[in-house]
């Protein structure tokens, strides 16, 4: 029997079915409200723990499911088809924190941090970007210095998803990238920092975002923040490898989020164009509308095939797929935005209002051209990798 790229095993198919049903019955009804109020739905997030998907790629011994990158894509695609904002909070927790800690931390740290994160009793994230360093990640200026059994962290982190779970409450635990004082530019060190650590505080919950409003975003401040030595991940100066390992799954799952947006947008415009009549004919009899629908579907399926093909090849323990993990996000982010845009166009005035969902998907889609690597960063990385090749296989 032919291999199903999107559901390579029956378990993948069941996972997709399970998440889709959960998304339709529990996530969909709350999506518009949390977009409007710009709030994070914590009880719903905890239900993801009951479903067992918060630790989708984390080993079973720490409370995870021990599955692969394809499974991670399935969860992101299905959740994002109804609520990309909520899905982004899931991604920050499950990919940027849980997967990162599972791949890079030692056994004692995993035992301390992962079971709670997999259950959903903790809401976690990762801190890389800073107010003055985004794409130029090595320009980060948060410093660490050793002081006895502690490290002292100073600096600020920006655009941290799950940084706050409400206007004034921090998330529970974060993986924080910093540089040892005096260390060279390329040597980073990562730390596990928990809420309640002296010197760690919420700078501000960032309000008034265009989209992804159901995921909380914050600026976090480290002022003489004292982190126990036991919370350092790996050795000093080795965090570049951790970062590279995790950026790849981050990009592939962000691409999967764009796929969810595109799929839903195609469904919405397809349904509408079949039912709505203009000049006595259903909209889908008109060539201009046919172009929107057919091109959107083909682009969605192209992105989907590329993403799942790359995910199927990934080894989560090893970096080495940068060209294509950047590639899927470069293609899918803009594709998702364009498809949502066409859905609004097909629906006309209705598409421009919240009830038909595509205006929200369109706003959410834009973030995926920026977060987790701007399209310009992907273009830079990919061109650099391609310059080393003469033949493509």
């Amino acid at each position, binding site marked *: 029997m032919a291999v199903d790229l999107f559901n390579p095993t029956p378990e993948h198919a*069941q996972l997709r079915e*399970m998440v889709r049903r959960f998304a339709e019955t529990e996530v969909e009804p709350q999506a518009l409200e949390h977009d409007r109020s710009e709030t994070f739905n914590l009880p719903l997030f905890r239900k993801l723990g009951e479903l067992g998907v918060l630790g989708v790629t984390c080993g079973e011994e720490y409370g995870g*499911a021990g599955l692969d990158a394809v499974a991670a894509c399935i969860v992101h695609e299905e959740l994002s088809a109804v609520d990309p904002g909520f899905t982004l909070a899931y991604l920050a927790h499950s990919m940027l924190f849980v997967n990162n800690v599972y791949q890079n931390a030692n056994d004692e740290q995993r035992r301390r941090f992962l079971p709670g994160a997999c259950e959903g009793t903790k809401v976690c994230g990762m801190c890389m970007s800073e107010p003055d360093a985004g794409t130029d990640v090595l320009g980060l200026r948060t410093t660490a210095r050793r002081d006895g059994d502690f490290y002292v962290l100073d600096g600020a982190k920006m655009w941290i998803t799950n940084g706050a779970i409400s206007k004034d409450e921090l998330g529970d635990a974060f993986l924080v990238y910093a540089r040892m004082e005096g260390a060279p530019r390329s040597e980073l060190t990562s730390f596990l920092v928990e809420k309640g650590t002296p010197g760690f505080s919420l700078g501000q919950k960032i309000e008034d975002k265009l989209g992804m409003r159901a995921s909380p975003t914050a600026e976090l401040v480290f002022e003489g923040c004292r982190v126990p030595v036991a919370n350092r991940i790996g050795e000093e100066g080795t965090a570049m490898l951790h970062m590279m390992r995790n950026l790849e799954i981050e990009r592939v799952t962000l691409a999967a989020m764009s796929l969810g947006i595109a799929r839903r947008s195609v469904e919405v415009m397809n349904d509408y164009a079949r039912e709505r009549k203009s000049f006595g004919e259903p909209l889908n009899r008109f060539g201009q509308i046919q172009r929107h629908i057919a091109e959107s579907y083909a682009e969605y399926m192209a992105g989907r095939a590329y993403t799942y093909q790359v995910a199927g090849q990934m080894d989560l323990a090893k970096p080495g797929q940068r060209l294509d993990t950047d590639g899927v996000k470069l293609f899918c982010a803009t594709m998702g935005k364009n498809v949502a845009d066409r859905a609004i166009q097909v629906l006309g005035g209705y598409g421009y209002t919240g009830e038909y969902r595509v205006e929200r998907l369109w706003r959410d889609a834009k973030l995926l051209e920026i977060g987790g690597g701007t399209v310009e960063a992907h273009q830079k990385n990919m061109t650099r990798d391609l310059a080393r090749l003469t033949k493509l296989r």
Partner: protein
Amino acid sequence: MKVLVPIKRVADPANANKVKVAGSEVSHDGLEWVMNPFDEWSLEAALRLTEDASAKTRTGEIVVVSIGPKAAVDTLREAMGKGAERGVLVDGEDTALDSNVVAQILAKVVEKEQPDLVLMGKQSADGDSNIAGTKLAELLGWPVINYASHIETSDDGKTLTIKRELDVGVQTLKVQGPAVITCSDRILKPGTIKNGVTPADFEYPDLGDLNSRLSNLKNIMAARKKPLDELGLGDLGVEPVRVDEYVGFELPAGRSGQAQFLESVDELVQKLQSEAKVL
């Protein structure tokens, strides 16, 4: 308590427009398969009968059985992911089955498994025959209760008190097992199942639009390792006899899709009188 739950895979009703018919056969090409929703109701009822929902532990055994091609294993695994302990797949081609054949095969499976109860869908979402449960009970010489809305067990699962919601009211029956029961969708409401183990004040969540509980990822993975027997008709010692002959299928006529939106109830009444002439 041991419950046998027969499960059929059916073409996804959400994509019914993919179904193609040719003379006396329905083509299965390109169809997406899902668990028969009516069977899902019975699976959910069986799960509630055989667990301590408060302690989240299983207290009985569910065997799910399907008759179909190899690919129907996926549907059985899905049921095991929701909590069933074992699966039995009886090899059979959908085109060779009718309700009588199904009942004859299931009777042999029941003989082999000796369950305390068979809980099954009142019908399948594709054939809508509504025969197999009653026919199975007849072959077994067991009592049959169709469209159960409440099930209460006592006497270690041997005695069943069952309610059925009828147009004229609610009927309550008491039977000694083993028995065959089919369920109505009311069975999915909180408080409809009492097994003497789950505390009486435990409240099941409202399933909303779902036909049975969602699984979780751990159970989906664990279901891969649960025992699943694959049997041929020879293994069961049965040569089922078909009594129905499919003569022809045709697709329903397309709907016109004409709808009018009116401003008021008065206008509706007036149109029902003057245009539709139904008042």
